[in-house]
């Protein structure tokens, strides 16, 4: 951000109010003082963002290029090792496993969240008795602290007293209880199910608001042309919702790759690292092994992944904005 010179007010509509349209005789701050006054509005936010949002990003890059040990925290000195930490990751089988599991976790979660979210949005599209109350209730899982959700699901998935095993056995779908969280074959599935439960309300709410803005005439026309419900969805709704879907998709990826609390409480990344993702692995390296250099390197790979999808998001975001204004 440049602050060294007085910012120029753009000639767009909203600035007229404060500057150009001031009637004659109105006291108007002199230009030099003006930008100082303006600066006081943004300075606290800029300072905060710089110190607590941007500086950590920079500091992580720095740490990832250093050999950080417990002693480094006392002395503040850590030897520069260049890209060694990243080279180590390339030879680290667990890193690649975490990357792979993160990808699987993300894909499965998003397919579930967006699929169920879209179905529910379509269900609630036309209002019916109690639909408003139902939609409000469906938002509750989104509002619960993740720790609460994870704790409840930890018990639902419990081998002995979990209600899921109880229900599945009652329905004769399984003979023996399933070790959901204690077997490396099932743990990722359990974590994905929980994450879908957490994410459905968000998808539903966004798709619902998108559906509300679709033009009704198109559907009347399609109906007159003899299109059935499925055809209307496929040829009218989906194409119209494509920009919104792109936004929900990229946001969901960004939210899902960084999931930490849920996995940490449910499985700690285990058993046998079967639910380790980049987020939990970075935590483990830094805060369990006190190897902050490698932890930072893994964190930065995660930042890179998020950045890729953030660019995708911003592009679709701008396109929707442009479409909305035009």
């Amino acid at each position, binding site marked *: *951000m440049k602050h060294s010179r007085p910012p120029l007010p*753009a000639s*767009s509509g*909203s*600035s007229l*109010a*404060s500057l150009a349209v*001031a009637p004659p005789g109105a006291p108007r701050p002199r230009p030099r003082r003006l930008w100082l*006054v*303006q600066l*006081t509005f*943004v300075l*606290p*936010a800029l300072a*905060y*963002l710089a110190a*607590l*949002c*941007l500086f*950590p*990003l920079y500091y*992580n890059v720095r740490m990832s290029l250093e050999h950080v040990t417990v002693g*480094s*925290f006392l002395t503040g000195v850590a030897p520069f090792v260049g890209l060694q930490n990243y080279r180590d990751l390339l030879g680290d089988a667990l890193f690649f496993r975490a990357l792979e599991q993160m990808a699987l976790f993300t894909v499965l979660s998003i397919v579930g969240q967006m699929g169920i979210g879209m179905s*529910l949005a379509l*269900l609630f599209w*036309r209002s*019916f*008795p109690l639909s408003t109350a139902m939609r*409000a*209730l*469906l*938002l509750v899982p989104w*509002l*619960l602290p*993740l*720790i609460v*959700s994870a*704790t*409840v699901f930890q018990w*639902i998935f419990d081998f002995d007293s979990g209600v899921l095993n109880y229900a599945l056995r009652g329905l004769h779908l399984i003979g023996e209880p399933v070790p959901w969280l204690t077997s490396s074959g099932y743990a990722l599935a359990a974590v994905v199910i929980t994450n879908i439960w957490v994410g459905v309300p*968000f998808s539903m*709410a*966004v798709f619902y*608001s998108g559906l509300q803005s679709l033009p009704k005439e198109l559907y009347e026309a399609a109906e007159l042309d003899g299109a059935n419900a499925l055809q209307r969805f496929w040829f009218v709704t989906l194409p119209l919702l494509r920009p919104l879907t792109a936004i929900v998709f990229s946001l969901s990826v*960004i939210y899902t*790759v*960084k999931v930490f609390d849920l996995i*940490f409480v449910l499985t700690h990344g285990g058993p046998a690292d079967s639910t380790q993702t980049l987020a939990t692995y970075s*935590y483990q390296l*830094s*805060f369990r092994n006190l190897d*902050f250099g490698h*932890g930072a390197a893994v*964190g*930065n790979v995660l*930042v890179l992944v998020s*950045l890729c999808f*953030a660019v995708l*998001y911003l592009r679709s975001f701008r396109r929707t904005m442009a479409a909305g204004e035009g």
Partner: protein
Amino acid sequence: MRAGARSAEWTRVGAGSLAVAVMLFPIYWMINASLQPRVAMLQTFPAFIPNPPILDAYRNIIDAQGPHVLVSCVVAGLSAIVSLTVAAPCAYAIVTFRMRWTTGFVLLLLLVQMMPNIVTPNALYAIFARLQLLNTYAALVLCDSTLSVPFAILLLRAFMVSLPKTFTEAAMVDGAGYWGAFVRVILPLSRNGLITAGLFCFLFAWSDFLFALTMSTKQRIVPITLGIYQFIGTHNTDWPSVMATAVLASVPPIVLLLFGQKYITAGLTGGALKD
């Protein structure tokens, strides 16, 4: 035709009820368990209705978890105040002083919001350790607000854009200056926006687990989220007590939903989508 529409409507009611039942089952199960004796939860056939409901589990945990709830209230309250104080003037500036960098700044805020929060403690642990800020309220409030400051700026900006300009103009004509117009006109007009943003900032900080886990290493300042986590570790078969703790931690979000539903729906999509 009319009968067909009728039955289609009932199908929707049925499907909607089923969705609500499935999605809310974990919450029902949590409350149900918290009202039962421990033995009832270890049986092969769990009791689906507390009969009679008992408050033993809550009595068991209130002494241990009550202080954690208090810590969470303080941290989340301070975080909301800090976030709004920093964000509101900034949002006003973005809306009012249309400057060259505003688009870039808004993009930066969106980007910052998307960064994986695991990198924040990774870097700040080292810095806070040197500044002797670990295990302080300040550390938790500052870290928790990393989520809410960008969010609040974007939300309040979306809100303030929709305010009629004539009010600000009138205040400026009266010689109020930018700060005068902001404090006396914009802030009161933005009441709903401020409530929404404040609710969410509180909620974000209340839900935080990662920063509590990493910045509060000495068990001096333990918010309820960390409290639950430590509680499961030591009482992992006393499910009624664990669930009672979970209920305790869910009370603020549920209360927020009940009293602020119109604000919640606005905020859910506001920060991410609305211009």
